């Protein structure tokens, strides 16, 4: 009994203490809900602390809110109750839904205009900026953690297969050949696998080959958009994956990032995943590896352009009684993280790409890319060629569900239940239904 009482007392004491944080008088308190776990979450907190230390007007409280999906749910519940946080980190595929939220969000251009804090869209890398901008170039949200999809190769397996590990394949035809060589020499149990199947093989594939993913400029120009991924070029690529699967060259590793352990464990010789996976691979892979640009298909487009980003941006949320001082604090934070030094430090510590051109230049002059060769490849891939209507990003509602539908249809095709074309036709049909439903709710 005694013991329980002391435990209770101790726990209530522990609770009471942090309930009264040392609140600096006169500082504007703003909250920032983020969705990054592990070491990256600590980096988010670090950036906020640095901001708090760098000025005296405002204090940011960063709060972890689970995955991006859980963060979004929390934000919606909070906004409905008039308790929204000042800022919320939201993944790139949520952009369409956030834009449809109208009065719940204060878009970055609006924030800049009202507070007078200058936030110039032109400082951001075009591939990053495009995703989070309105069609006329005004920023809707604040670019934050950004990455892109890359190809990763097991150099040891390449060696064993008699391939040159210094020259990873740059075309899909080359990938198929390399996979055949790996299988023929038994250089790795799995020649090729992929994480983020939809992101890599449809979103990135479409952007780089300058193919529309959906009509209306991938949804930028209107809610009445329809999927276009059953076009012959996409069907050709899915057919290639199916053929590779049948030949034993490609192994489906699961949805989203479920396939990542296959590469780290050394089983898969080639994989595709986010450039942000670098830190994990560097720590855990017990073999020589390299990151390379995503392969393209010259038969579809001999002059591939930029890939699109993944990651998240920061949205400013509204609430009743929110003061101009609070908005100004948010705007100041945005301006702060856009400073080349801050952005470059974020980029170098996290493995995300810099969001501003100046931070990229700064990292170059600091010799970062000599110290860690290859870390500039994602930036080069993101800024290749001329940004087009097809490569600036996606503005589709319920994008997570669209990704899921595509993954489901891929899985059914890979099990031999349907052809590539049938899978994509079905995905388009089901996806369009989701888009129409979203259009109706967003129009009201």
């Amino acid at each position, binding site marked *: 009994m005694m013991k329980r009482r002391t435990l209770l007392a101790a726990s209530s004491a522990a609770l009471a203490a942090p309930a009264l944080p040392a609140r600096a008088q006169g500082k504007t308190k703003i909250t920032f809900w983020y969705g990054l776990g592990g070491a990256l979450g600590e980096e988010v907190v670090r950036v906020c602390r640095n901001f708090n230390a760098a000025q005296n007007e405002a204090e940011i409280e960063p709060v972890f809110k689970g995955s991006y*999906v*859980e963060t*979004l*749910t929390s934000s*919606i519940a909070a*906004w*409905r109750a008039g308790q929204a946080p000042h800022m919320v980190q939201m993944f790139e595929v949520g952009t369409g*839904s956030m834009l*449809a*939220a*109208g*009065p*719940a969000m204060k878009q970055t251009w609006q924030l800049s205009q009202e507070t007078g804090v200058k936030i110039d869209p032109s400082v951001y890398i075009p591939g990053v900026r495009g995703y989070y901008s309105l069609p006329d170039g005004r920023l809707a949200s604040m670019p934050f953690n950004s990455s892109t999809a890359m190809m990763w190769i097991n150099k040891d397996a390449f060696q064993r297969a008699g391939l040159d590990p210094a020259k990873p394949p740059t075309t899909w035809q080359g990938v198929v050949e390399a996979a055949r060589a790996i299988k023929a020499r038994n250089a790795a149990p*799995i020649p090729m696998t992929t994480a983020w199947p939809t992101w890599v093989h449809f979103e990135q594939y479409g952007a780089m080959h300058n193919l529309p993913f959906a009509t209306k400029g991938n949804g930028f120009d209107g809610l009445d958009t329809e999927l276009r991924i059953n076009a012959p070029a996409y069907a050709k690529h899915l057919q290639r994956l199916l053929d590779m699967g049948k030949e034993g060259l490609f*192994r*489906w*590793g*699961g*949805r*989203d990032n*479920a396939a990542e*352990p*296959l590469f780290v*464990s050394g*089983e898969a010789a080639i994989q595709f995943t986010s450039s942000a996976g670098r830190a994990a691979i560097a720590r855990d892979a017990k073999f020589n590896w390299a990151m390379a640009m995503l392969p393209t298909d010259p038969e579809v487009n001999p002059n591939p352009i930029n890939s699109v980003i993944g990651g998240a941006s920061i949205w400013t949320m509204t609430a009743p009684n929110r003061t101009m001082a609070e908005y100004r604090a948010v705007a100041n934070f945005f301006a702060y993280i856009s400073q080349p030094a801050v952005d470059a430090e974020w980029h170098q510590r996290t493995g995300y790409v810099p969001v501003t051109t100046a931070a990229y230049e700064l990292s170059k002059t600091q010799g970062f890319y000599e110290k860690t060769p290859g870390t500039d490849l994602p930036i080069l891939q993101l800024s290749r060629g001329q940004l087009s209507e097809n490569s600036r990003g996606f503005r589709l509602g*319920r994008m*997570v*569900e669209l990704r*899921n539908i595509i*993954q*489901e*249809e891929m*899985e*059914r095709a*890979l*099990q031999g*239940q349907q052809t590539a074309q049938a899978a994509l036709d079905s995905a388009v049909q089901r996806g369009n239904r*989701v888009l129409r*439903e979203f259009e*109706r*709710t*967003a*129009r*009201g």
Partner: protein
Amino acid sequence: MERRTIFSGWALPAALVLPQLLLTFFFFLWPAGQALFYSLQRQDAFGIRTEFVGLENFSELFADPLYVETIWRTIIFCALVAFISMALALLLAVFADREIRGRGVYRTLLIWPYAIAPAVAAVLWLLLVHPQIGLISGMLNAMGIAWDYKLNSAQAFTVVVLVSAWKQVSYNFIFFLAGLQSIPKSVMEAARMDGAKGWRQFRTIVFPLLAPTTFFLIVVNMVYAAFDTFGTIEALTRGGPGKATETLVVKVYRDGIVNLDLGSSSAQSVVLMLGVIALTAVQFRYLGRRRDS
């Protein structure tokens, strides 16, 4: 079973139930009522634009052949999970109820898994059955079984059923053990005198006496399988491959939380809720009839 009330007055009982009623009203009834109302609406995620659409959310659901498939899949899933976890638990409970050495230890070792958090269970099984890196998969592959539940619907379904059932075994074990212990020794003695032993004794004496426990557990397990297996399925297969392991609650989550289609997910919840209520009602009626006869 009603008891004659023994105390009079209304102020005291009202004061006694008030906290419960207030909490229930504010944290269950009121929000649940709103959620039910959502099923008749079309609204965007932030609740900025709402429109009353009557039963449209329901008619859209049943017009979708994929949804109807999911209903059937869920029924099969729940039945299998309930059956497997209860059968296993009953088997263990019957043996743990015997007069054997170390039964106290066995009981303890079978009861503690009750405390395993769903989140922990999912991480754990992910380690064990992952197609390429899992321990169990390694053994299956060594035995010549091409194990790849990420791309084999039957294997995926098997995995989610087994893992979901696993989580519920110790709960059922506790109730079956309690049920077995409440069977009077004299009854068992009498049965033994009559020559009923082993399987026959179990079938003719023990199992009928366990009927109330069994019926209670059927309801609890069906509810568990219908609602609380979401975390397991999400962690292991996310409903895939294709839709092979998508149950109704996975779809509720997908549409309500990921997809933010509150109207449709509320409508789906109503369907799910009616299903479970119907099931419970059938159980109670069946149970009542058995008792009467």
